[in-house]
């Protein structure tokens, strides 16, 4: 057995203990939006007359990458809906947009040509959305947060620290509570022995820990084993995997603001997958290929697909004369609403890809994750004020999120991944067509179509608000910012 995780055990090592009020695990868009919004909320709270002020707070954020943004990976086209909420004048503040989407194509490829949809399907219409590099975007968010000074709050951004183990505490009622994470030891040989520069990992204790580890987090695995979070979900978590390259290309090869999505060739028949080509200001191109990880054939090679894809007659001219700059790969959480685990538990919360906050139809999740962090921040503020970090207190996040615009979007797209599981077949197209009518994303064959609010509650899930509330109530359920940045 070669267990690279033995470092979490390593008995007899003295570990320093650091105390935080709130600890964010992972510097992705969800957690950074959460931290940002939490600072807004604390500022607004402390400015309110007649309330007990929050003082002497320490908020930490750890990230396994050497710098913030090193491990951030996405296409990406960002729907700025919740970014506008967070920061209305984001463009004026130097947001690293690669341009708004102005032209788009959706193709079903064959090996030599293909069929171009005359009008992109509604869920793939991206006009007004921003093409971004997620690495640049999270760097920018971290810079904005670092530049802020909020009275009574100490913010520590700690890149280079990987969480390796969840710290637990027994509660009087026999259940366990999350009280932080342990970071990985540094200076260890591959066989687990210590090197001369050995540095023990620290115990980071926090009243509430927000896990935004991305898809299939190794800490989320531990949480799942202990708390069985997936039990309240309809489906297990589902994933895809994307590989991506960024190219420098001669000007004129691709217009700025151009977005191409394709499906079909070169993926094997009966599997789902597809590609993107995004123009980064006309001078660079982001190109990538995504394959589903629940394929029948385990030998699907995403990297090979991308190489074949680049030779397609529609794609090759774009890259002609160009040079590849960086490449990478990442799993994508794609399960959406049907796969979402329990979002909060005593002492902890899940945000972003860890909680499967991705809209499979729109191929987007950054904005949904950001909203997750922002809603979590709202609940954390309440928890800090009430000094209550129990399951019930933090579960308010789940209800609020599911009732928000983000939750509704996830609900509407819940059946998409299931429909295209075996490729873009005729039945899949019919189902997608049906779900685009005004029926909240219902598709034939959906086992949950007859579900009522009560049966959802029995599964520990908040019922979607439109099942239970009047339209007037619905319009007020989305949370508005407590304060805008001045």
């Amino acid at each position: 057995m070669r267990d690279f995780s033995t470092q979490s055990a390593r008995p007899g090592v003295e570990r320093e203990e650091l105390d935080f009020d709130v600890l964010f695990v992972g510097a992705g868009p969800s957690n950074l939006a959460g931290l940002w919004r939490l600072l807004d909320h604390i500022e607004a709270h402390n400015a309110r007359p007649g309330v007990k002020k929050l003082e002497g707070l320490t908020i930490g954020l750890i990230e396994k990458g050497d710098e913030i943004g090193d491990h951030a990976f996405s296409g990406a086209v960002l729907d700025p809906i919740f970014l506008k909420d967070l920061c209305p004048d984001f463009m004026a503040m130097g947001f690293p947009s690669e341009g708004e989407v102005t032209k788009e194509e959706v193709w079903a490829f064959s090996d030599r040509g293909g069929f171009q949809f005359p009008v992109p399907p509604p869920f793939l219409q991206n006009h007004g959305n921003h093409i971004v590099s997620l690495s640049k975007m999270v760097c920018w968010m971290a810079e904005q947060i670092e530049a802020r000074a909020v009275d009574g709050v100490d913010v520590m951004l700690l890149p280079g620290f990987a969480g390796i183990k969840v710290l637990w505490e027994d509660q009087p009622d026999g259940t366990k509570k999350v009280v932080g994470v342990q970071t990985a030891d540094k200076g260890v040989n591959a066989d687990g022995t210590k090197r001369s520069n050995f540095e023990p990992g620290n115990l980071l204790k926090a009243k509430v820990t927000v896990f935004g580890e991305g898809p299939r987090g190794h800490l989320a695995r531990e949480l799942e084993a202990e708390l069985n979070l997936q039990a309240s979900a309809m489906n297990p978590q589902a994933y895809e995997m994307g590989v991506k390259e960024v190219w420098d290309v001669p000007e004129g090869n691709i217009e700025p603001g151009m977005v191409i999505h394709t499906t079909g060739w070169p993926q094997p028949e009966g599997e789902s997958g597809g590609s993107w080509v995004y123009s980064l200001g006309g001078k660079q191109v982001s190109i990538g290929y995504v394959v589903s990880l629940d394929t029948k054939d385990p030998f699907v090679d995403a990297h090979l697909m991308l190489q074949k894809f680049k030779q397609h007659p529609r794609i090759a001219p774009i890259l002609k004369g160009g040079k590849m700059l960086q490449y990478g790969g990442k799993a994508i959480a794609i399960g959406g609403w049907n796969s979402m685990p329990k979002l909060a538990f005593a002492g902890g919360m899940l945000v972003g890809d860890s909680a499967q906050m991705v809209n499979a139809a729109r191929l987007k999740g950054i904005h949904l994750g950001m909203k997750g962090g922002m809603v979590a921040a709202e609940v954390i503020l309440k928890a800090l004020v009430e000094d209550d970090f129990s399951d019930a207190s933090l579960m308010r996040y789940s209800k609020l999120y599911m009732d928000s615009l983000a939750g509704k979007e996830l609900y509407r797209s819940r059946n998409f991944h299931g429909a295209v599981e075996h490729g873009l077949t005729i039945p899949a197209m019919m189902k997608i067509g049906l779900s685009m009518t005004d029926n909240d994303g219902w598709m034939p064959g959906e086992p949950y179509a007859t579900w009522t609010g009560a049966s959802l509650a029995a599964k520990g899930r908040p019922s979607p608000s439109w099942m239970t509330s009047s339209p007037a109530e619905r319009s007020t359920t989305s949370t508005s910012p407590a304060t805008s940045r001045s």
Partner: protein
Amino acid sequence: VKGDDVCVTCYEEKGAPCTIFCPAQVYEMHPDDKGAVSKVDIAFSNCVHCKTCDIKCPEENVIWTPPEGGGGPKWTIL
């Protein structure tokens, strides 16, 4: 990787898909002259932290854990 024997059996019966689906070629099998393998070679410095192996290993034999902090890819424009 929990157990090498599982990987060897997987190689013989299933052809070790990890050597194909990993986008960064972390997992390599090196058959000897007789075509037999004894272990899987893990080039963890190649790893881009995509976690596909944790999801897709047919034997659920891979439990991905991060190396010490500060490792992994250094993307700036992805």
